[in-house]
């Protein structure tokens, strides 16, 4: 069975280590914050200038001056710091953020990612995504393995305009965990009940399947 959005987020959260600084994109990545294991802590970086992003506020706590990169009202955790946008991206570009988790339209075997622009559709902008993929030490792409028409989103080469090149090393989809190594996707784990055959079928880029592929454990 393909994973739900929450299950993907749950699997993402397993990647984090105690003490990691993490930037979570909008959508599934944001959900990962709900599944951080109880015995570790991570600190969330929001690229509008907040390190130590907390939960949503209560009605009483709502403050127009306290928002996240998705422009939602938020709170700050104990020990948070707040700074300007140049400092925020110095942190990101300089490789100080341990993990960036973001969605994508496509990724390819060279570690390229396309996530911000579909020609012919109105372009809203890349926001901080290009800085994040150029800067973070580890990037995890979360997405469904195929688009709504059933087309693979794991390609030999991205067809859409890129967000970044040679930067994606790990992908977590509704079907599998894959790494990107030496011009191929390498299957690391499969979702419970999903066959290697289905993953092969839905992966258009070169796929390496080790002899023994573990099933995800939740």
């Amino acid at each position, binding site marked *: 069975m393909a994973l739900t959005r929450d299950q993907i987020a749950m699997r993402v959260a397993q990647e984090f280590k105690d003490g990691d600084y993490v930037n979570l994109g909008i959508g599934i990545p944001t959900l990962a914050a709900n599944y951080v294991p109880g015995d570790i802590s991570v600190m969330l970086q929001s690229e509008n200038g907040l390190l130590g992003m907390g939960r949503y506020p209560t009605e009483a706590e709502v403050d127009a001056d306290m*928002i996240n990169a998705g422009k939602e009202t938020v709170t700050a955790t104990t020990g948070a710091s707040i700074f300007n*946008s140049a400092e925020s991206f110095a942190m990101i570009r300089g490789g100080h953020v341990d993990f960036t988790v973001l969605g994508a339209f496509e990724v390819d075997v060279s570690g390229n990612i396309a996530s911000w622009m579909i020609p012919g559709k109105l372009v*809203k902008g*890349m926001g901080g995504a290009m800085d994040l993929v150029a800067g973070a030490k580890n990037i995890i792409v979360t997405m469904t393995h195929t688009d709504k028409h059933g087309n693979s989103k794991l390609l030999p080469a991205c067809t859409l305009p890129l967000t970044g090149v040679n930067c994606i090393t790990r992908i977590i989809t509704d079907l599998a965990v894959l790494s990107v190594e030496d011009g191929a996707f390498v299957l690391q784990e499969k979702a419970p009940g999903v066959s290697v055959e289905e993953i092969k079928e839905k992966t258009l880029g070169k796929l390496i399947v080790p002899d023994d592929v573990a099933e995800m454990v939740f």
Partner: protein
Amino acid sequence: MAGFNKVVNTYEEALSGLSDSMTVIAGGFGLCGIPEGLIAHIKTMGVKDLTVVSNNCGVDGFGLGLLLEDKQISKMVSSYVGENALFEKQLLNGELEVELTPQGTLAEKMRAGGAGIPAFYTATGYGTPVGEGKEVKEFDGRPYILEHAITGDFAIVKAWKADKFGNCVFRHTAQNFNPMAATAGKITVVEVEEIVEPGTLSPSEIHTPGIYVNRIIKGEFEKRIERRVVAKEDV
């Protein structure tokens, strides 16, 4: 210290000298930390053909979105402009040009403009449409693109408190692009919630030193919230 008192009493004074075809750098992220009164006054002034450098372009009917209503903006330099139907329309009509710039590159371009650094290299955008036509150079085997500084004829900034000498502090995440914008204007105008006496702010806690600020005006702020999200459960 009369020469350092930068307080003005009217928006007319605050924006005196702003005219058609100028470049205006604006602080703010979404609707958070935007100089509401200065933007509204630019609408009143009716200046046209502006290039506006700001991470976003407000929403329909509020913030920089106001300046779209009478087509005062001919070009936006932004990282994300997705919250605005009028923006879309003018963009598709060809009435508005947009230069999409990665958020971190935009912040750094403003900082560089204020800091006398005409250009810098960044890996952000290499190999993407953002990198097209830009100089590429390798450092330690990795390719980077050359990005140029941005300066403006005016910078419009929103601060929490400023003393009369222009020393500013920002509140929470309303800081965002404001300190960089403040450094990058030939004339920098700061709209604040509160004007205080020099000496009130602790010298080491000042976010924007007064040297960057030319004019200060006390504003009234609606502080509209773009996405009010409230905790679902008890916390």
